[in-house]
């Protein structure tokens, strides 16, 4: 792993508790989704973000509700942390009318513009230009909104990364490029796909500031994002944050991950973002172990309720297939 630094103030106590709660919700959601998918309850492709909860929570909580967020095939956590409704998300995964997209989108395409989420994207690298456009809107409409593009380290090799970061740079747009470097892109160790040790180093080509962060420490991610958002709102242009983290599960649910060395997986499991947060919260008396266990239990119950609601909901009627092809 690359040297990691954080030059920012840690977040205050309540916020740290909220970060934990957000991670707990994502953990519960993704754990449950993995089971549901295994059991054939959810159709399509599913990519979970287990192990990466700190990035989602740290970024999501540092943003305002009206800030924009464009995400990827691995976007459940990002949406949850941004405040998107759990029932709406679960309903969407179940392809029910209660889903945020009424069943037309699915896991890879969850969107909720009412919370600034302008879409999850199944095209690697496509989130970046969209976020640049959202940043352009914010700037030209004088809206003080920040736009975040999430993407993986694999997406950095797409031309759209290059073009988008450069555009945001020359136009001084309020865009935060958040690269979740979980080392793998599908079955490929991304370190073999570049000669450069970390993604943040590649930002130099665009003349923008970039930081490599411990992506399993929500406090660190939060602080860096909050600082970046402030910069953006001050009109100082884009910034790139590389969050080093790890994908616990396979690329998609069902992938047995033969390509990962065991010791690597184990070492990262030891760096569970929830455990890290938990230990620190308890250690500095911000919360008790019991309180945190209750938070986890609440999250589980919340997700259970969402699953029940989704199961009970209707599937879309035949005619819905033909709606919304065009707006009127």
């Amino acid at each position, binding site marked *: 792993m690359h040297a990691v630094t954080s030059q920012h103030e840690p977040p205050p106590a309540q916020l740290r508790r909220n970060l934990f709660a957000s991670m707990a919700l994502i953990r519960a959601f993704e754990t449950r989704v993995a089971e549901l998918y295994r059991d054939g309850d959810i159709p399509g492709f599913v990519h979970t973000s287990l192990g990466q909860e700190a990035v989602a929570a740290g970024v999501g909580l540092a943003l305002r509700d009206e800030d*924009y967020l*464009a995400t990827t095939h691995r976007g459940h956590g990002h949406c949850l942390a941004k405040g998107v409704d759990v029932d709406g998300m679960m309903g969407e995964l179940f392809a029910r009318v209660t889903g*945020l*997209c*009424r069943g*037309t*989108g699915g896991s890879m*395409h969850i*969107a*909720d*513009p*009412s919370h600034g989420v*302008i*879409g999850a*994207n199944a*095209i690697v690298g*496509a989130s*970046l*230009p*969209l*976020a*640049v*456009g*959202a*940043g*352009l*809107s*914010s700037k*030209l*409409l004088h*809206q003080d909104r920040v*736009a975040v593009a999430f993407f993986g380290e694999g997406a950095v090799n797409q*031309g*759209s990364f*290059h*073009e*988008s970061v*450069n*555009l945001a740079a*020359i*136009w001084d747009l309020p865009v935060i490029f958040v690269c979740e470097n979980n080392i793998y892109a599908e079955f490929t160790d991304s370190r073999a796909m570049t000669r450069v040790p970390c993604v943040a180093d590649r930002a130099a080509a665009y003349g923008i500031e970039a930081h490599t962060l411990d992506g399993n420490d929500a406090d660190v991610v939060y602080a860096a994002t909050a600082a970046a958002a402030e910069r953006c709102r001050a009109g100082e242009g884009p910034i790139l944050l590389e969050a080093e983290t790890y994908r616990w599960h396979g690329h998609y649910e069902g992938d047995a991950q033969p390509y990962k060395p065991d010791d690597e997986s184990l070492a990262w499991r030891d760096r569970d973002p929830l455990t890290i947060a938990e230990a620190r919260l308890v250690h500095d008396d911000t919360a008790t172990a019991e309180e945190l266990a209750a938070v986890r239990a609440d999250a589980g119950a919340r997700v259970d309720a969402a699953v029940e609601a989704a199961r009970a909901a209707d599937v879309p009627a035949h005619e819905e297939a033909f*709606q*919304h*092809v*065009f*707006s*009127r």
Partner: protein
Amino acid sequence: MSSVAEPQTTTRYIDALAQGMRTAMQEDERVVLLGIDVGAGGGIFTVTRGLHEEFGSERVIDTPISEMGYVGAGVGAAMTGLRPIVEIMFMDFVGVCLDPILNQAAKLGYMTAGALQIPIVFRTQTGAGRSAGAQHSQSLEAWFAHVPGLKVVMPATVTDAHDLLVAAVRDPNPVVFIENRRLYGMRGQAGEDPLPLGQARVARSGDEVTVVTWGQSLRECLSAADESSASLEVIDLRSLVPLDMETVIASVRRTGRLLVVHEAVQDFGAGGEIAARVADELFDELRTPVRRIGTPSVPMPFSPELERTLLPGAAAIAAAGEALLAEG
């Protein structure tokens, strides 16, 4: 629009386009222009000349040669409150920026059950006949018409250059707006009264053979109507999506004969759709088979002589009309 010389005091197609953008920008502050050299340079074909001076660099934005990035940013901006007109300098360049059109603009409205609206105009131009070579001569309107969620507009007259452009900007959906550079210098009546998209126009009445066309081929068809001993009724479709089949069907019902003409390659071109529909709907009423004239399946050569060999011209159209009449 007839082949008779027009008075020199009327407007040029290219000016009508500029005026269309001006109208749209004046009536709605959220309209912005993005593209390579559309700003201070006034456009490589001078289409946007004057707009930068009039509306400033916040609304008429020069981009780097990063089509994937800026077209995608246009889509992101359209989702978040702007109404961008994005220029793709030559239609052939969609090869480097198709994803934002194909997978983002065309689909995100549907995939979010209408929660996202994407009011964007992709302005581009095509047109063989001036030795621009195979990579600068393609007419690919059929591709876009085949993608659900995109409207596809091709102005063939000076009036429509203005009116359809304004209508495209007012439309709340993504519109691929295809100009033809061989028309840029053509003079005609300035437009001012935009209709909604999707209304074909009988450009010339006749009663023996219906000729359906669009874009620059309209001129060839009108000349053919002048020359031909057959009485040709020439219909300018104006848009492929929405497709005004009513006007076509009504005409063919009268004439009993149909010729579809386009500059694009004939094989698997948009003419096949029109021909197939009419041959189906008017099976019992057609006097002769539906015929098509397009460019043969050949990359467009540089040589002016070879280019002339391939492009459908007035003489061939007139002859095809006469042949149909002779057939039955």
